[in-house]
C-alpha cells in the first residue's frame, strides 16, 4: 500500500506540474486576476495537489522505511502482476482497434468484429455463441438506438 501511495503521489505531482506549465501560457489579467484570470483556478488546484501529494509521499515514505524487507517484496509482487495486466491491456487494445474500425466501417461491422475478437480472447465455448453473440449484440443495440431511440449511429466513411 505504501509503495502504491508513493507512486500515486508522484503521478499526481507530475500531473500538477504539467497543468502549471500549461497555465503559464494563459493570458494574465492584471489587477483583476482572481476574477478574470483563466489560469487562477487550475493553478490553485495544482498547488493543492502538490501539497496533498507531498503529505501522501512523506507519510508513506516514512512507513515504507519501517517495513521489513520481506513485506516490501510481497507488495511489489502484488502490484506487478504482469500477466494479468497484459491480459487487460490486450482487452483495451481490442477496444481501441474497434473504435478505429468504427470510424471507417461504422457501428455494426466494427462492433461485430469487437465482440467476435472478445469471444475468442475470452475463450468462449461453443460455435453458436461465438457467432450469435457478436451478431445479436451489434444488431439489437443498433436497432434500439436507430429505430426506437432515434439516435443515428456512425455508418463509417466507406458507406
Amino acid at each position, binding site marked *: 500500500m505504501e509503495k502504491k501511495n508513493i507512486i500515486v503521489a508522484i503521478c*499526481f505531482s507530475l500531473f500538477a506540474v504539467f497543468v502549471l506549465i500549461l497555465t503559464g501560457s494563459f493570458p494574465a489579467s492584471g489587477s483583476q486576476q*482572481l476574477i478574470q*484570470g483563466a489560469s487562477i483556478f*487550475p493553478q490553485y488546484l495544482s498547488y493543492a495537489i502538490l501539497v496533498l501529494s507531498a503529505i*501522501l509521499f512523506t507519510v508513506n515514505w516514512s512507513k515504507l522505511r519501517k517495513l521489513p524487507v520481506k513485506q516490501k517484496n510481497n507488495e511489489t509482487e502484488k502490484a506487478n502482476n504482469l500477466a494479468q495486466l497484459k491480459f487487460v491491456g490486450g482487452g483495451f487494445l481490442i477496444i481501441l482497434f474497434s473504435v478505429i474500425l468504427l470510424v471507417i466501417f461504422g457501428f455494426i461491422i466494427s*462492433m461485430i468484429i469487437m465482440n467476435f475478437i472478445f469471444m475468442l480472447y475470452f475463450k468462449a465455448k461453443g460455435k453458436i455463441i461465438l457467432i450469435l453473440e457478436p451478431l445479436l449484440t451489434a444488431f439489437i443495440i443498433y436497432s434500439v438506438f436507430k429505430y426506437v431511440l432515434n439516435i443515428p449511429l456512425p455508418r463509417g466513411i466507406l458507406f
Partner: protein
Amino acid sequence: MFEGLLLGLIDVITTPSVFFLMIFGVIAGISIGALPGLTSTMSMAVLLPITFGMDAHRSFALLLSVYIGAIYGGSITAILINTPGTPAAAATTFDGYTLAKKGQPGRALATSTVSSALGGIISVILLTTISPILAKFALRFAAPEFFALAVFGLSIIASISNNNIVKGLMAGCFGLIIATIGLDPISAFPRFTFGRAELLGGVSFIPLMVGLFALPQCFVEMEKMFKKDNILNNFNHSIINLKEFFQILPTIIKSGLMGGFIGSVPGAGGDIAAFAAYNEAKRSSKKDDHFGEGALKGIAAPEAANNASTGGAMIPLLSLAVPGDSNTAVLLGGLIILGLQPGPLLFTQQADLVNNIFAIMMLGNIVMLIVGLLGIRYFVKVLSVPKNIIVPVVLTLSVVGSYSMNNSVFDIFVTLVFGIVGYLLLKADVIVSPIVLAVILGPMAEENFRRALIMYDGGFSFLYTRPITIVFLTLAIFTVITAFLKQGTFKRKAKKKI
C-alpha cells in the same frame, strides 16, 4: 392542496389510456435509464415527439413516468455491474454494488426500488404542500449561494473517500481541473483544449462517467476471468424484509426531504442530491451500519434523494416557469408545445392539469415500485450471464452510450482515456467518485465564485454576510471535520486490532 391531489388521482385512475401510458412510460424510462450513457433527459427528449399528438394530460403522463422510471433505472446497472445508468445513480454504486458482490443483488435492488418510490412520493407531497414557499427559497439563490452549495457538495468528497481523505481530495482536485477544460466562464479563454474544437464546451460528462465506471469494471472482470474467479455466480434472490424496511425508513424520509429541497434549487439536480443524502446518511450512521460494505442505508439514501429530486425540480418549473434541471427543461418545452405557460397562473387557469401532474407523479412512483419489485427476479438474471458475454455487451453499450450524447466519435476516445485513468486509479486504491462529483460541481463552483467576486467588487464579504451562504459553508466545514474525525477513529481502531 390535498383535495387537488385527490381529484387528480381519481381522474388519472379512471382514465385507462392515461394509466396505460404511465405504465409504458415507467417501463421505457427504466429500460433507457438502465443503459449506461443514456440519461433521463435523453429518454424524455427521445419520447417527446411521441407526445405531439396527445393532449396535455396524456403527454405529461408519459413524460413524467419516463422521468421517474429513468432516474430509478440508473440504479439497476449501478448495483448489478457497478456502472451507473445515469449520473444520479453514481452514489448508489458505493453500497449497492458491494452488496450485489456479496451475493445479495435482490436485497440491493429491492432497497433501491422501495427507496426510490418512497423518495418520489415524499417529493410529491412537498410539491403539493409547500411548493410556493420552496420556490421563493430557491429563487433567493444568487452566485454566492450557488458557490456555497457547490462547496458543500465538494466537501462530501471527504466523507466518501473510504478512510483515505488525502487521496480522495487529490482525486477531487484532479476532477476540478478536468472541469476547467473548455472555455473560461468569464473571459472565454480556451483552457487545455489543445486546439480541439470538441473540448471547447468542456469534457462531456457522460463519456467521462462511462469511462470512469464502466470500463474499469470491465477490466476488473477481465482480471477475474484471467484468474478464473467468478464471485457473482452464487447469489440469492431474497429481497428486504419488514424489519429491514423499518430500519431504513427514517433514512428514506430524511433523504427524500433533502432530495426534494436540493432538487428545487435550479441547477442542483438528482446527482448532487444523491451524494448529499449519502453523505448525511453516512455521517449520522451507527457503528453497525457498515457504510461502504453493502449497507442498506447506503443504498436507500442516494436512491430516495435522487428520485425525490424529480418532485423538487418540478417546484420552480410549475410555480415560476424556471426549469430546475435539464429534465424539467424538456418538460417546459413540452408545456410550451402544448400552448401552456407555466408559472403562478397555471395553478388558476389549468388547475385540473396541475392536479393531474401531482397525481401522475404520485401514481408514477407507485407504478415504478410495482414494476421494479416484479422486475427484480429478471434484473438479477444479468448476473447469471457468463462474464465472457456480459463484458463485450457492456463494452459495446459503453461505446455507443458515449457516442450518442453528442454524436461524436471523439467522446468515445474520451471514454477510453478515462477508462485507463479509472483503471489505474482503481489499482492504486484511489476512489473515482470524487472525480465525478468534482466534474459535476466544478463549473458551478468556479463560475459562481467569480461571479460573486464581481458582485462584491472583488471582496470576499459574500462568504459571511449572506445567511444561506453561511449555512452551506458551515455545513461544508462540519462535513470535512466529521470525516477527518471518523478517519482518525477508524485508524485508531485498526491499530488496536493489530
